[in-house]
């Protein structure tokens, strides 16, 4: 029997993977679109390079967090080579789990900063 993958197995996500998932959660994108989106989303802090991007995409595809999808109707370029990606259901669940984890982390950090004893997460 194959165990259904549990989103909790995939967190914490690596930084690049997190931002790529965030970008794709908004809309399907191709490789270069992801780089631009991540750049904007991170306010220029994360500039993905080509090799790093496709390494992460391979990993996400293999873990079945993202999948290839049809070209969106409103795509800016009709270049044949461009493949578009979107998160799978599992991918969205992992993203949610990760964001949730981070939110708890931030809350704990804030409590500490306020001088209260942090609750264990």
């Amino acid at each position, binding site marked *: 029997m194959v165990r259904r993958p549990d989103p909790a197995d995939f967190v914490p996500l690596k930084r690049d993977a997190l931002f790529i998932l965030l970008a794709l959660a908004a809309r399907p994108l191709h490789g270069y679109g992801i780089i631009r989106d991540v750049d904007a989303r991170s306010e220029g802090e994360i500039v993905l390079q080509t*090799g790093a991007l496709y390494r992460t995409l391979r990993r996400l595809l293999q873990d079945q967090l993202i999948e290839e999808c049809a070209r969106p109707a409103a795509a800016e370029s009709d270049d044949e*080579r461009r493949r578009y990606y979107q998160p799978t259901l599992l991918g969205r669940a992992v993203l949610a789990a990760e964001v949730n984890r981070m939110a708890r982390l931030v809350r704990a950090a804030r409590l500490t900063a306020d001088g209260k004893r942090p609750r264990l997460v």
Partner: protein
Amino acid sequence: MIERLYRLLLALLPRDFRERFGAEMLDTARALDADRPRSPRRTARVISDAILTPIALRAELRADARLAGQTRKVPMESFLRDVRFALRGLRREPAFTAFVAITLALGIGANAAMFGIADRLLLRGPAHVREADRVVRVYFTEQPPGMRVFTTSGFGHVTYDLLRQGATAFEQVATYAINDVVAGQGADARQVRAGYTTAGFFPLLGVQPALGRFFTEHEDTANAAARVAVLSHSAWMSWFGGSQDAIGRTVTLGDESYEVIGGAPPGFTGAELGRVDVWVPGNVKSARITSNWATTWNAQWLKIVARLKPGVTFEQAGLDATGAHRRAYTGGDAWTAEGRLSVASLGANDAGNDATEVRVLRWLTWVAALVLLIACANIANLLLARGKRRHREVAIRAALGASRLRIVRLLLIESILLAFAGAAAGVVVTYAIGGLARQALFTSIEWTSSPVNARVLMASAAFALATGLLVGLLPALRSTRTAGTDALRTGPREGGGRRSALRTALTIVQAALSVLLLIGAGLFVRSLWNVRALDLGIDPDRVMVIGAARSSLARIPDGPEREAERARRRTFYLDTLDRVRALPGVEAAAVAVGLPFGDRFSVELRVPAPDAVPRLKGGGPGVSAVSAGYFETVGTRLLRGRAFTAEDRAGTEPVAIVSDLMAKTVWPGAEALGKCLLVGSGTPPCARVVGVAANTYRSRLREDPVMHYYIPAGQEVGFGGSALIVRGADRSPNLGPFSRSSVRQLVGIWPYVSRSSPVFPDEDVRTALVADVRRLLTGLDTTISYISAETIQARIEPQVRPWTLGATVFLLSGLLALIVAGIGIYSVMSYLIADRRREIGVRMALGATAADIVRLVLRGSLLMAVVGIAIGEVVAALLGRFAEPLLFETSPRDPAVFAGVAGLLLAVAMAATFIPARRARSVNPVEALRTE
């Protein structure tokens, strides 16, 4: 470049990954590259991404495979492990690693810099030329009676026509000429380089416009209605800010307005490598020079470039063109009818030979290769010594089952890593040397890319790989040779018994190569010294030659008005002379037609008494027409008689001043003063000789003495073209140490700083003086569009450059080699002494004194030095005849140079042995015998 980098990267990636993502990755890389401005930071990121990706990806794949329970071995794994191991080893010895890296950085960096220059000059040629191996320039060789065979690349339009119509070897033919022209008007006026070409020039080369279009046949007819121009990329950028609106705007060249119709791509310089700012139709210019431009055989202002048909050799093309020329020639000169046409590739100069730059480059490349060889010998030496120390480690590995191949591979990886570290550090060296060479030595070439570009980096990597193998192979084979467990069993005591003959040999090679370079340096320094010490008969440092460009006389309707203007222009300089002299900072000023290292004139001359002017090898006699104050201005001594005064001018009694050589040659044993010269037509009245002036060099530093005489400005007939010459006051002999010019000087001739007088008081003073003169002249004459100014020294300087260059390059590399060789001797001696500690201990125990020990050590190192010197000097003596034509009044076997170099190397060997010798002296015999 970035795309190419990723293509390379893809080849390194696992196939599955490449097939799935390859096309996408390239697309993304391309989009990313197009989108963002290049910056060093970004380039660094991209490069590190490209390096990291295959490594990280393989690691991930391995991890995945392990998880999946597969145990398939990734072949890269053991390699990567070796790399990591080697890196750890090198990190443990930072001093050794740093020393090796720096030494190799100098060698590899210098060679990569030379590659960068060769790449443009020899390998790639002018940019944007398609299938450059079929593109040739055309040359003409003839021998007029009584003269030497000479080759030229100057042609008239007729030759262009006959090649197009009568020759079959060429696919396309075009002409071009490159000239300075004044662009803009008034205060904006500046001199630019214009290329005058036929319309077929651009399609022939295969260049595509970056903006607009190139001109058409129709626009290239002599009476074309519109004047059109194509800007170079840099002119488009600087004149119009790179705006698309440049199309349709006008530029003023000379007297005329040209409409901009297009822009050339960046780096396009036509068929040569020099900068060209603007391209305009050539026939328009030809028509301006003479009315019979299309039919005359007596014209040489065009250069011809052609594209050969596929498969046609240079010889065939030459024969074909010669045939066409002989069939078509209708001029009257028998020797021209028999002349020969030939073709050569674009790397050749105007005489069909290797361009000076190419010759210079060849020398530089040899020197750089020598430096790398010396560095390699040094590093191989160090690695041998190191290999010896690691003898046991190697033996242990072998005992544990590592094959010899595996150990050799590990050691090679180590040396290659070292070489790559050297290459990485060498980028700085490449940048510095490449930049310097471009600025100081290859000034006439338009460089478009940085001295460190992708191709240079690739060459650097190739050099590193070769160097790593070269220096690593021998030590690696050596240190793995001892088979079996012998090395384990015995201590280094036994292992160190035999002196390393190989290491001694390598040190001797280093010494010999350094001697070679230093002798080169010595010979060039002496040549340069001799050049600088030459008495030219003039004082060229502070003499400015000033010329004015004016609007064309053709603008004035033909008639008395034009004649009046012509006359006014002819005497303009003479009329303004007093005002020029009154300017602050002017010590003397004069007007001259025909100057040393400038225009050379000669007119018919008869002398009544001997009735024949003897001919000298140097030719001549030459003539100049000069005003009062000339000799004072150029600094030529008047030996006897008087100089010209303001009373000697057009219409007064004809007089002349002759050079000393002329006085002695024409009237041997008699006084020249008062004698008569029949100048020009050869009919009376005589020009009476009133003075004798010192001899002067006329045009070359290496010339046979040439007779010369002077007549007063205004009395010249049959030649013209006067220039204003100004001698600046010697205001500040002190060169500001940080002014650009002095830095440039320092680079070129720093060994002579003490001797060399400043070229001109200072660049600032000169600029101010030129500005004053410019203001004065343009104020007096509104037809002047541009004033050019140049010192006579600046005209001589290109002739001095080969020696300056040779001295600098050889001196710098020679000193470098000397340092490296010194370190080599030091390290070999150190290791030898470490090896022989026990022997030394025994000797001391047996009663040898400290002085004995020092003598022993010193003898070893001096022997190496002496053998190195002997080999180096013999080789230098043998190679001397190749250097001879490059030297200036210096023997290639100059004993002082040879002796000086020998002394220097011996001194360095002594110094390098000093510390090891002291260490040997302080060996404690008891301790040395007890250890091990």
